[in-house]
């Protein structure tokens, strides 16, 4: 994927670029708002990673400008630690996701992948299918190999989220934010508990495991390659 990083901290940007390149992406870097704006408007990127605090031109101002000029590229905002109002402001300005600094690189990679619209997400489909697992969003039913699986409402939401992001890594915090609307990190391992219950219902008794744990990052639902 082709990514744009708009970040004024040279060391941080270099580190980010290196990690993203290592993950197989092509990365452009803009050290300041103006270059960022020019690149974002001119080139076709899959995802833009935008720091909120930039010299000259504020990150949110750039975001509003590129959205106003019709650029629909998904934007991941990086915000400073502790700014609890930043998220709402950032999303209102047209951001698609936000990440609080400092963050684990695995978290950033997962979010960039989740944001990228390539391959096209199955967001509108009513029927999600991975291998022999089928989820009907209208009937709210799940079957595996034709056998019905009974899920609690939360478990259904979890599975739906995983299937919509099939083949990509979904992190703990992504699940906390999207399933429970928790924008902070509880001390209890609630995600692990819910995942292990879901896993027991989806994978137990099947040779082919669909829900995988990605060490140090999160979870990934994928069929046999």
């Amino acid at each position, binding site marked *: 994927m082709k990514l744009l990083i708009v970040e004024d901290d040279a060391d941080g940007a270099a580190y980010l670029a290196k990690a993203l390149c290592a993950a197989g992406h092509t990365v452009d870097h803009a050290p300041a708002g103006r270059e960022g704006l020019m690149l974002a408007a001119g080139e076709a990127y899959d995802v833009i990673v935008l720091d909120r605090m930039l010299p000259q031109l504020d990150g949110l101002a750039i975001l509003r400008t590129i959205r106003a000029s019709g650029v629909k590229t998904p934007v991941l905002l990086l915000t400073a630690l*502790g700014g609890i*109002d930043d998220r709402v402001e950032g999303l209102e300005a047209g951001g698609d996701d936000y990440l609080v600094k400092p963050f684990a690189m695995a978290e950033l990679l997962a979010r960039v992948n989740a944001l990228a619209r390539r391959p096209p997400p199955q967001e509108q489909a009513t029927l999600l299918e991975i291998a022999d697992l089928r989820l009907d969003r209208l009937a709210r039913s799940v079957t595996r190999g034709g056998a019905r699986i009974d899920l609690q409402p939360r478990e259904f939401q979890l599975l739906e989220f995983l299937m919509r992001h099939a083949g990509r890594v979904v992190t703990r915090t992504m699940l906390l934010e999207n399933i429970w609307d928790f924008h902070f990190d509880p001390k209890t391992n609630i995600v692990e508990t819910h995942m292990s219950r879901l896993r027991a219902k989806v994978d137990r008794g099947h040779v082919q495991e669909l829900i995988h744990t990605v060490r140090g990052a999160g979870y990934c639902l994928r069929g046999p390659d």
Partner: protein
Amino acid sequence: MFRSTSARFATLYTAAFAFSVLLLGAITLWTTHNALAHQFDRRVRAESQALVQEYRTEGIEDVLQAVRERERTKGALFYGLDGPRGSLAGRLSGLGAASGWSTIRMKEADGDVERVRVLATPLPTGYRLIVGDAVKRNEAIEATVLEGFCWAFIGVVVLGIFGGYRFSRDVHRRFANMTAAADAIIQGDFNRRIPVLGSGDDLDRLAGVFNRTLDRISSLMDSLRQVSNDIAHDLRTPLTRLRQRLEATRNMGTPAEQEAAIEGALRDVDAILDTFSALLRIAQVESGARRAAFRTVDLAALSRTVVDAFAPSAEDAGQALRFEGDDAVAITGDRELLTQMLVNLVENALRHAGPRARVVVQASRTGDDAAVSVTDDGPGVPEAERTRIFDRFYRLERSRSTPGDGLGLALVGAIARLHGATIELTDAQPGLRVALRFPNVTDGSTPAKSV
């Protein structure tokens, strides 16, 4: 002092009052003058008509008689009767008054000349009747009125200047006191407050508002100082541990050992960042800035979400967590912070209440108040320590070994204060019940009262 606003006001008011008195005097004088002149003319005309009537019924002899009699009455009008061949009777006769109204000069017995306004009426057969009165009688009344107003004018000006001086001196003194207090605060004396007289007037109220503002600012400064102290004190320990761990890594032989040490160091850094972020969050909540983003929030729905999120983990640990209460409990607040508050309370209960604990979250509405509570059946908290558990980094002696940074309940306290909620800690016999009461949530759309 004469540059002060109050002095300018006083001067302006004195001038306005003096001008009003002048205007009032002029109007009164003019009205009095007209009324007196009117009355004068009416009296003279009535007297003339009476005498003319007498002439018509009784003849000239009776009129002559009447004029002579009336002249002798004290305080009466002046009269005159001229015949075809000269004056007949009365002091006004023979002075040559023309027919109709006129003002003539009359010589007094003592030689003074008196101005008299007269009405001369010609009678048939060459006679002429003259009736009039001294002009100075009206002038004397007008002079008295004028004099009265002059005194009133002087009184207003003197009182205005004196009262204005007193008023502006008092106000000026109070403003000077306020300025001095504000200057002292600017110089760094943050305990100084603006003097309040207790009269309850607008300046007192203003001073009260200033003082409350200062109280708020100094409490924010205290909180900031507290945060700095906390960071300095409580982050030093984990940072020291981290440093030691990294130092030890240098001398480690195998890559596996090094990797394990780096993992450990990362965990340490994450823990430090968590603490740091929690401290910042508490400080932000305490600053009150979030109040601007308050919306209607359903406490019951939030409680159900939190219970639903934590119930499986609790079950795995052999504990029970459930929700009880109303379907919907609407209050005005910050959804994200209230969620975190409930999560912290539930986590706290599950962590400290022991392996087979039963934890109940309740949300309800009583009258105008909404309440949410978390009750456990664990060992509880000794009464003496109940208020202290909301302090930053405070931990019960027996909880030192359980994980936790001592900030969870501090954040709960800050969020409750932000929402104007009161926290009640009671003995659940056994266990601890933490109840938060949100007052006056009448329709869920009124903003919470400021703390």
